């Protein structure tokens, strides 16, 4: 113990009082408010940046300045592009599938109080492993439905195992060498990209472009319900939902899950109760890596059909989704759906209005920014007279009872 000793009682009381605020209901409110505020800030950005863009027909000319982007029109096109047709719904659900997986991968580690930024790297390595397996075994296996299923299962297994191993690495470095996980995982993301590029260029290249062989048709999960062009399969989506439910079940119904939450809440209590912190760290990271790797596998089989070094930042999106969901695997599902709308809407936006699809990346950051400051949200809430809804009845009781 440090000589700082226990904190002043009244100070501790106030801190506790603040913690009590963060009830589940309030967390949901904060998430929705963050999303809404991010969209508002995004609208202002759009309006302002529209003044700098060049376009044929500005929607507004004010004081000689031409404003190219109409925020309301932009959001309308985004929404329409995301859920306006079966095809676009398919695209949105495709994004959602990846986001759920990446979000759950991040959430598991964040629950344990580990800041794992490495899902992106595990996604890259997993996808690469899945694609490599396809390239090396597609010829050996029969070219029919059975071979397809086999190829699919083996490919995803390879992706999962590769992701798990790549995820375990920063876990070991953190548990046994005290190497800060934020830094190691970010570095491993860079390394993964470099390794993937080199591997594809030097060993897996098919044809002129730096990319792997196509996944044969019979191994691509069939699109049912949704148009084939949307590259979305309900057969993948349902297991993805099961993974989110499974992660939630695991956290609530297994000693590992209990220990993950315990380590995230209070490391000292974990140690007191006989938890081997190092083992929990490595296991959590491995589990997260497994799911991160699977995300890469799904990307190869369902979305792209092959692997190439330049891939979307699904892992980073996973952080936004997880944070938005308060790191709850079940909460990840709606959070991923909402962010999926933004992502697939942004693509439509680019094609229809010429507004850069990078808008999704901007919103990704702003959402985390708002979720990161619950105090700010509470202040906003009080301003609009929502104070009563955010304070739980328990709060008053605590401050009164805690005065011994």
């Amino acid at each position, binding site marked *: 113990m440090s000589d700082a000793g226990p904190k002043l009682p009244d100070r501790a009381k106030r801190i506790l009082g603040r913690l009590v605020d963060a009830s589940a209901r309030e967390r949901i409110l904060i998430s929705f408010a963050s999303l809404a505020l991010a969209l508002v800030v995004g609208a202002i950005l759009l309006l302002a*940046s529209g003044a700098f863009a060049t376009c044929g027909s500005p929607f507004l000319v004010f004081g000689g300045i031409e404003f190219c982007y109409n925020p309301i029109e932009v959001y309308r096109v985004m929404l329409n592009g995301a859920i306006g047709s079966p095809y676009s719904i398919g695209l949105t659900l495709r994004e959602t599938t990846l986001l759920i997986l990446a979000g759950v991968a991040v959430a598991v580690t964040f629950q344990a109080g580990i800041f794992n930024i490495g899902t992106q790297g595990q996604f890259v390595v997993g996808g690469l492993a899945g694609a490599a397996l396809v390239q090396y075994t597609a010829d050996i296996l029969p070219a029919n439905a059975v071979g397809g299923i086999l190829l699919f299962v083996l490919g995803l297994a390879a992706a999962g195992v590769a992701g798990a191993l790549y995820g375990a690495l920063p876990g070991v470095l953190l548990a046994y060498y005290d190497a800060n996980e934020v830094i190691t995982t970010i570095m491993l993301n860079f390394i993964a990209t470099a390794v993937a590029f080199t591997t594809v260029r030097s060993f897996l290249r098919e044809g002129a472009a730096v990319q792997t062989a196509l996944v044969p048709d019979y191994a691509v999960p069939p699109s049912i319900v949704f148009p084939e062009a949307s590259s979305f399969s309900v057969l993948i989506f349902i297991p993805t939902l099961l993974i989110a439910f499974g992660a939630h079940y695991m956290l609530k119904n297994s000693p590992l899950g209990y220990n993950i939450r315990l380590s995230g809440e209070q490391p000292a209590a974990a140690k007191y109760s006989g938890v081997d912190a190092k083992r929990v760290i490595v296991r959590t990271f491995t589990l997260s890596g497994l799911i991160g790797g699977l995300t890469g596998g799904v990307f190869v089989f369902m979305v792209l059909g092959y692997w190439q070094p330049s891939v979307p930042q699904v892992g980073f999106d996973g952080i936004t989704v997880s944070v938005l969901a308060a790191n709850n695997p079940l909460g990840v599902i709606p959070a991923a759906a909402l962010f999926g709308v933004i992502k697939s809407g942004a693509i439509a936006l680019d094609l229809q209005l010429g507004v850069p699809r990078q808008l999704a990346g*901007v919103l990704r950051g702003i959402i985390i920014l708002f979720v990161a400051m*619950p105090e700010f949200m509470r202040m906003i809430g009080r301003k609009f007279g929502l104070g009563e809804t955010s304070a739980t009845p328990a709060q008053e009781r605590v401050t009164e009872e805690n005065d011994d």
Partner: protein
Amino acid sequence: MIENTRLTRRRIGLLVIAAVAVLGVVASPYRTDIRNLFTVGFFNTALTLAVPITLAGVGGLYSEKSGVINIGIEGLLIAAAFTSVLVTGTTVSTVGADNAVWLGLLAAVVVSTLGALLFGVICIRYKADQIIAGLAIWFVFLGLAPFFSRVYWGQINSPTVATFDQIAIPVLSEIPWLGTLLFTNYPTTYLMLIIVPVAWYVLKFTSFGMWVRASGEHPEALDTAGISVNRVRYASIMISGALSGIGGAAMTLSTVGQFIGQGQTIVNGRGFIGIVAYLMGNYNPIGTFGAAALFAGLDALQVRLQQIGFDIAPELFGAIPYMAVIVVLVFFGYTRIPDRAGENYESGDD
């Protein structure tokens, strides 16, 4: 003794790094070429490449010493790199290239400092978790820069703009070897060479430096001595912003004069490497510079290897600094971080 274990670990780390370097040199089949590798030009390039890492590191060091872990430096570098190109490009026609680059640098510092202020407000005023807030700042600028690139230039990478010229300092630059290494440089490099010792002096020998150190170790001690902890923290965070501003501008204006918005942008993790540099440098600005120079050297090496036609997997070579960071963290990760870094401070009464 804890000190000793730490020291031993440090020594082992240095030994490993030295061994890898020696092995690399000895075992290489290109031994003669390697002798041509380490020219004064190589070291000069390394020095230029060290500027963003060093300044990000020294800035991050001030912030963390004051009690606020600033993971967002990477984002600040991105903001600065983008702004410097944007402002230089748009002002060059009115003020001329020589002035435009300086305006670009100034604008980069302003934008990056404002970004840091935003981070400070989130952490201090709104009591956000510092790590999550830092991530948010990184993500915001990682998203904004390519978005604005496309809005403004219609493409994710900017066109090239005017750049700084290397300035040879009269007389001093005539000194053989050293003259080329130290006295023929970009203005941003000179800035770094001045900032590092100044930052060291300020932290160690001035009142403000003492307050910064106290603020991260035992904020109550500072508070009860009548100095506002939050003011010291805001100041330190804004220092990290200003320094990152110079670092980000150095990355564009002292090299190719272009902002690259693809993937991780032109900054490509240098902010994070800066964090590792100050950990390795044990929160000493001069040590931070040393560590940054090591990473920059590895970066320069891979550039140089490609130049002399050492064409095996350039991307893999490009990853060497990142691997080095992990090796360094394993051996140097056990630094004593300021006791209360990462914790928000609340004064007795609000």
